[in-house]
């Protein structure tokens, strides 16, 4: 029952595929190919990413992250987040577990919104393609406004979410760590 509940979304999507295969086989075939393509990519990328996150969880000290990316890091923290985000790395879903780990280690919400946003929207290789097909002025203007928007979004989200501690809204990574931290807090 537990497993069924956990997998209810994938099961639902599976049903849509079956329905599609009956009523629009060409579309279903195309969809299945795309899924298979992305599956190969994910199967290669996700295990090392999670392993790196595990290593970071264990080795990188909390005070370092707090110092570089925490709420007191100011403009420097924002610039580090932007630089980390624009580096040529994998697809956005790779950044989610990284962001969660950084948040737990004391990174500020605004810096993480900049990090995720620049990862998705301001990646250097992606900007190159954009310049090639949409021109330098389009790309330049979009870059400036997107960055401005990300900083504003960060401020808004910081005011809405930041009142509570990270534990108030971030899903726990695993129960053991949560229990340990709760224990520490009590002590």
């Amino acid at each position: 029952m537990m497993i069924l509940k956990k997998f209810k979304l994938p099961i639902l999507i599976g049903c849509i595929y079956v329905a599609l295969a009956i009523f629009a086989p060409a579309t279903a075939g195309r969809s299945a190919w795309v899924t298979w393509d992305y599956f190969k990519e994910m199967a290669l990328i996700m295990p090392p990413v999670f392993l790196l996150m595990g290593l970071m969880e264990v080795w990188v000290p909390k005070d370092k992250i707090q110092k570089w990316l925490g709420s007191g890091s100011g403009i420097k923290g924002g610039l580090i987040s932007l630089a980390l985000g624009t580096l040529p790395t994998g697809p956005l879903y790779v950044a989610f577990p990284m962001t969660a780990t950084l948040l737990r280690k004391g990174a500020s919400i605004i810096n993480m919104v900049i990090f995720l946003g620049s990862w998705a929207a301001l990646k250097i290789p992606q900007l190159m393609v954009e310049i090639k097909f949409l021109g330098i002025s389009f790309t330049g203007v979009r870059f400036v406004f997107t960055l401005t928007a990300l900083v504003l979004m960060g401020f808004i989200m910081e005011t809405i979410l930041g009142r509570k501690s990270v534990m108030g809204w971030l899903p726990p990574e695993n129960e053991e760590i949560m229990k340990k931290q709760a224990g520490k807090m009590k002590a």
Partner: protein
Amino acid sequence: MATIIMIYGFLAVCLLMSLIKSKEKSKKALKVAGKALLKTAPSLLAVLGIVGLTLGILTAEAISGLVGAEAGFVATIIAAVLGAITLIPSLVAFPLAGSLLRSGATVMTISAFVTTLVMVGMVTAPMEMKILGKKFTLLRNGLGFLAALIIAGIMGVIL
């Protein structure tokens, strides 16, 4: 491919350093990683399925049909919504946006499409929610969508 080699290379170096420094801690890191991966697996599968469905239904031709058929404000809103729900690799998306622009779509429409495409990820939202929480995900994507519309409006005026 280069990305994958880079990630694996980096992981190998980190893992080796970790093992040399402490076997105990390395073991713990593996445990943390395994648990997190298992926990995310259902939403990963869901994302895969949704990506396939959106790209299978909303092909490049379908998108240009939808965006090109309407004009003005309606086209911009359609473009923004299409951008928000699809997850297209940039090597496909930007040539598509460029050809739409040349075939007569307005700058506002194209910037709405491009900006929501990169700022809003409805397809990856189930995974984002699982890892970063519902509140964070809804705020980030909701604000991102609003911001994209405003950016598109400004770009339409100044470009």
